[in-house]
C-alpha cells in the first residue's frame, strides 16, 4: 500500500525586494510504498530539499498536497522523522539526552526513555559515548546520533536531507552501509535526498531523478539489486550500468545549473 502520497506539490518563493518570484518546484507527484527506500537524486538547487521540507511540514506547498497514511500533512510532527545535512544535535544535551528528546516529548517515563535510547545507541554503534556532548563527537558520530534520535521516535517515515553530505568519502561509505543495515532490519519507509549518484543507487530500491530548477521529476528508476547489500556491490557490472544511466540523466541537468555548453 502507499504510505506517502505527494500529489501535485509545487513551491514558488516570493521575490525578494520586488524581484521576480522563484519557482523552486514545479508540480511533483510521487507515491512511496510502505517499507520502501527511495532516493531523490538531483543537482544542487533543484528543489529536492524543498520537496523534503514540504513532506516534513517545515514548509508549505504553493499548490498540491501531501498525504501520509491518507491524512494530509499540515505541519511538522513526530510521525515524520528527519535527519538534516547540517549538524542539528542539541549542543547542550548529551548523546543519550538527544536521543531521548522526542521520547520525553511523548511523555514516556524515564526508564522507558533510557531503554529505547540504549537500544538505538547500540544500533548506531555509539556505546561508550552516551554521555558525550555533540562537540566532542566527529561529524560521522553526530549524524549517527541524529539518525538514532529520529528512529527512536518510531516515525512512520524517515526523511533524510543529504545526511552524509558534509562527511569525508570514507566515512560516508561506512555511514551508507550502517543506515542500510538498520533499514534491512527495521524496514522503515525512507525518503532520502542526495546529489551523489553512487549513494542514490547504493541505498535505494527506487531512484527518483529531478531536473534542474525549477525542479520536476525527470525519471523514476527501479534498483533491482538484492539485499543485504555490501560495499562490494558498488563494483559489480549491474551497479555500474545503473550508475552510468543515472550519470547521463543527471549530467544534462548539472550542465544547466552550471550554465555550461553541453
Amino acid at each position, binding site marked *: 500500500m502507499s504510505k506517502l502520497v505527494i500529489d501535485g506539490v509545487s513551491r514558488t518563493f516570493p521575490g525578494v525586494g520586488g524581484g521576480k518570484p522563484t519557482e523552486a518546484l514545479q508540480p511533483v507527484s510521487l507515491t512511496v510504498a510502505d517499507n520502501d527506500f527511495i532516493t531523490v537524486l538531483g543537482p544542487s538547487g533543484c528543489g529536492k530539499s524543498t520537496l523534503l521540507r514540504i513532506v*516534513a*511540514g*517545515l514548509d508549505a506547498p504553493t499548490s498540491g498536497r501531501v498525504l501520509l497514511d491518507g491524512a494530509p500533512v499540515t*505541519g*511538522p*510532527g*513526530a510521525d*515524520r*522523522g*528527519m535527519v*538534516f545535512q*547540517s549538524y*542539528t544535535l*542539541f*549542543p*547542550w*544535551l548529551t548523546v543519550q539526552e538527544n536521543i531521548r*528528546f*522526542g521520547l520525553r*516529548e*511523548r511523555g514516556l517515563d524515564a526508564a522507558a526513555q533510557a531503554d529505547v535510547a540504549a537500544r538505538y545507541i547500540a544500533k548506531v554503534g555509539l556505546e561508550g559515548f552516551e554521555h558525550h*556532548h*555533540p*562537540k566532542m563527537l566527529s561529524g560521522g558520530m553526530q549524524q549517527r546520533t541524529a539518525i538514532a*534520535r*529520529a528512529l527512536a*521516535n518510531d516515525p512512520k517515515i524517515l*526523511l533524510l536531507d543529504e545526511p552524509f553530505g558534509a562527511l569525508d568519502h570514507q566515512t560516508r561509505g561506512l555511514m551508507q552501509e550502517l543506515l542500510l543495515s538498520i533499514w534491512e532490519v527495521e524496514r522503515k519507509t525512507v525518503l532520502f535526498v542526495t546529489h551523489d549518484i553512487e549513494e542514490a543507487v547504493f541505498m535505494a530500491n527506487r531512484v527518483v531523478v529531478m531536473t534542474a530548477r525549477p525542479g520536476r521529476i525527470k525519471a523514476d528508476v527501479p534498483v533491482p539489486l538484492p539485499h543485504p547489500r555490501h560495499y562490494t556491490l558498488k563494483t559489480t557490472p549491474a551497479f555500474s550500468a545503473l550508475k552510468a544511466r543515472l550519470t547521463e540523466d543527471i549530467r544534462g541537468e548539472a550542465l544547466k545549473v552550471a550554465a555550461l555548453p553541453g
Partner: protein
Amino acid sequence: MRPLTPVPPGRKAALGLAFFVLFVIAWGIATFGGFVSRTFLADPLTMAREGYALFAQHGFARDVAITIWRVLGGFVLAAALAVPLGIAMGAYKPVEAFFEPFVSFARYLPASAFIPLLILWAGIGEMQKLLVIFIGSFFQIVLMVAVQVGATRRDLVEAAYTLGATSRSVVRRVLLPSAAPAIAETLRLVLGWAWTYVIVAELIGASSGIGHMITDSQALLNTGQIIFGIIVIGVIGLVSDFLFKWANQRLFPWSLS
C-alpha cells in the same frame, strides 16, 4: 610576535600583573617626585593609610556592604523582570513588535538623569537607589535577551518540531537552553554597568555607601580616600566578574569552544 599566537598561562598572568606594578610605580614617581601637588593626588602610601583608617575608624565596611546590597538588589529586581520579558519578546514576534520600539527608546534614557525625579518620587531612601539601578539595567537586559533568544539556530528549532515538540516545548527545551549562556553573559556585562549607576546614585542624596564616602572626602580634599574608594569599587567589580565567569563555565561547559 606573531599575530593571534596564544601566550602560555604563566606568562599571561605575569604580563597582566606587570602592568599593575608599572602603574603604581608611575603613580609613585608622579607623587613622591613632587611632579603633582598632594592637594590634587595623594601618593600610594597615603592612599593605603587612608584606606586602613577608613575601615578601622570610619566604619567603611558598612558603606561597602550597603553599596553591594543596593547593586545586587536593583540588579536582581531588574533581571527577574527583564529576562522573562526578553525571552517572551525573542520567542514571540508579536510581543516583540509591541514592546521593542519603546524598550529601544527607553534604553537610551540616561539612568543618572532620572535621579532628581526619583528623589522627588521615592525620596532619598533605599528605594530611590534601587530604582536608579533598575532603570539603568532593565531595558538593556530586555533588549539583549530578546536578541539572543531570537538568534536561536533555526535548524535546531526545526529538528525539535520534527521530533514532535509543541510550541511551548520549543521555547522551554530549545530556545531557553540555547540562549542560556548568552543570557548569563549579558547579566555579567550589565552587572558591571550597574556599579557605575549605584555610585552616581550615591553621589547625590545619600547618607551611606561608597559614593557617599567619596563626596564626603571631596569636601575634605582627601584624595587618598577618594582613590581608595574607587579602587575598592574596581576590586569588587573584578571579583564579581570572576565569580560570574566561573559560574558560567561550570553551568554551560557545552558552549565553550
